[in-house]
C-alpha cells in the first residue's frame, strides 16, 4: 500500500467513524460527491458497522414529531442533483468503462482541508479504471475565508460549466447577493461565473472562457442584490482559493 492509499484509507475510516471535525467532514463530503469510488469505500465501512447502531435501544419518538419535521421541510430547498455538464452527457452511464482507452491509473489531486479543519495540501489519489464514467472536473478549488475556514468548493469542468458547493453557512444580508468569479488571466481580469441564489450548491454556466488551469483564482464576493452593477467584483471577498488541476499526473 502506498502513501496515497494510506491517506485515502485513513480519511475514509476517520470519516465513517465520525472522527473528523464537522468542517473537515463537510469538506470530505464535497470531495466524495465527485468521487464515486471514495464514496463506495466509505459506504462499505459504514455498512459493516451498522449492527452497532442497531444495538441501541429503540425509543418512541414524541407525539407530533413527524408533523414538526414536515413543517420544517416545507421551508427547506433541496440541493440540486449532481452536475452533469453538457460535454459529458454523451457518455452512456451504463456502458462499461473503456479501460483500454484510459490512462492505467489516473491520480487526481485534491486540495482538501482535512486535518484539524485547516486546509493543508492533502493528496487523495485513486485508481480510476473501475470507476463509472462520471464527469470529472478539470480543476477544483477550496475557497477559504480570511480566517482560513473552508467555505465552498468549486469544481470547474471546463466548457464554461462549474459546480459550487458550500461547506459552511454564509450569512447573506437582505438586499445582497453572492457572486462567483474567476481570474483566467491578468489580461482578462475577473470574470463572473454567476450570481448565486443563496449559499447553496449551484451549477454555474459562465461566459465563454479558456479552460481553467492550475492556480487559477476563484472567489465569492458579496454584491448588491442581482449581482455586481459594474461586471467586476465590487463587494467584500467572502472566500477565495486557487485551483488545483485534477487530471492525471
Amino acid at each position, binding site marked *: 500500500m502506498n502513501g496515497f492509499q494510506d491517506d485515502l*484509507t*485513513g480519511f475514509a*475510516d476517520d470519516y*465513517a*467513524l*465520525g*472522527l473528523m*471535525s*464537522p468542517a473537515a*467532514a463537510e469538506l470530505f463530503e464535497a470531495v466524495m*460527491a465527485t468521487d*464515486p469510488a471514495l*464514496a*463506495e469505500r*466509505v*459506504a*462499505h*465501512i*459504514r*455498512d*459493516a*458497522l*451498522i*449492527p*452497532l*447502531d*442497531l*444495538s*441501541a*435501544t*429503540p*425509543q*418512541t*419518538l*414524541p407525539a407530533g*414529531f*413527524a408533523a*414538526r*419535521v*414536515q413543517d*420544517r*421541510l*416545507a421551508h*427547506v*430547498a*433541496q*440541493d*440540486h*442533483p*449532481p452536475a452533469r455538464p453538457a460535454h459529458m452527457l454523451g457518455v452512456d452511464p451504463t456502458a462499461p468503462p473503456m479501460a483500454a482507452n484510459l490512462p492505467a491509473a489516473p491520480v487526481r489531486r485534491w486540495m482538501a482541508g482535512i486535518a484539524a479543519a485547516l486546509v493543508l495540501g492533502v493528496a487523495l489519489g485513486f485508481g480510476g479504471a473501475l470507476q*463509472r464514467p462520471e464527469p470529472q472536473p478539470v480543476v477544483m478549488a477550496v475557497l477559504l475565508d480570511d480566517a482560513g475556514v473552508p467555505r465552498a468548493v468549486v469544481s470547474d469542468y471546463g466548457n464554461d460549466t462549474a459546480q459550487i458547493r458550500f461547506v459552511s453557512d454564509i450569512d447573506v444580508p437582505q438586499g445582497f447577493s453572492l457572486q462567483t468569479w474567476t481570474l483566467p488571466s491578468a489580461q482578462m481580469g475577473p470574470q463572473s461565473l454567476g450570481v448565486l441564489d443563496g449559499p447553496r*450548491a449551484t451549477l454555474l454556466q459562465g461566459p465563454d472562457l479558456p479552460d481553467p488551469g492550475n492556480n487559477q483564482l476563484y472567489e465569492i464576493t458579496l454584491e448588491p442584490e442581482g449581482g455586481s452593477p459594474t461586471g467586476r467584483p465590487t463587494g467584500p471577498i467572502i472566500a477565495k482559493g486557487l485551483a488545483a488541476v485534477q487530471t492525471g499526473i
Partner: protein
Amino acid sequence: MDDHGAQRSRRLEQAIQACAEGHPEGIDTILELEGSQLFGVALRILTRHDLAEEAVQDAMVLIWRKSPQQRGPSGSARGWIYAILRNRCLTILRDGRRLSSMSPEELTRMQDARDQIVPEEGWQMLAGSSRLGDCLDALDDPARRAILLAHVGGFSHGEISARQGVPLGTAKSWIRRGLASLKECLS
C-alpha cells in the same frame, strides 16, 4: 439478508427516491421504518431527549435536502441514513457554544452518562449476534475499545486517547490497525 430485511431496504430506497423527486412523504416512511431506532441511537450518544430529538429532526431535514444528490449504489440506504444522523449528533456534541450554555451540573451529568455508553465489560451486546461481533472479538482489547468509543460513543480521537490513557498517536494507530483487521475479517 432475510426477506424482512430485504423488504425494509427496498422501502427505504424508495423513500429516498421519493424525497429526491420532491415528495416529502418519503421522510414519513423513513420515520415509520427507522424513527424509533434512530431516536435510540441519538439518545445513546447525546443522553438528553431534547438534543436527541433535535438531532433526528435535523437528520430528516438533511436527508430531504441531500436526497437529489444521492446517486448510484454507494452502500445501503440504511447506512446512509444512520451516517447522517450520527454526523448530526457529533456536530451537536462538539458545538462549543452550545456546551458553554449548559450549567456545570448539567455538563457533568451528561459526561457521566456518556461514560457509560461503552461498558468495560459486556461490549458484546453492542454488536448483537452479528458477524461484526465475531470480528470485533478477534481484535486486541484496546483497539476494539477505541473503535467502539468512536462509533458507538461518538468520542473524538482526543477523548479516546484520554480515556485509554495513551498518547493521541497511539489511539489513532489502534483505531487504524483495528479497522484494517476488522475489514479483513469481514471480507
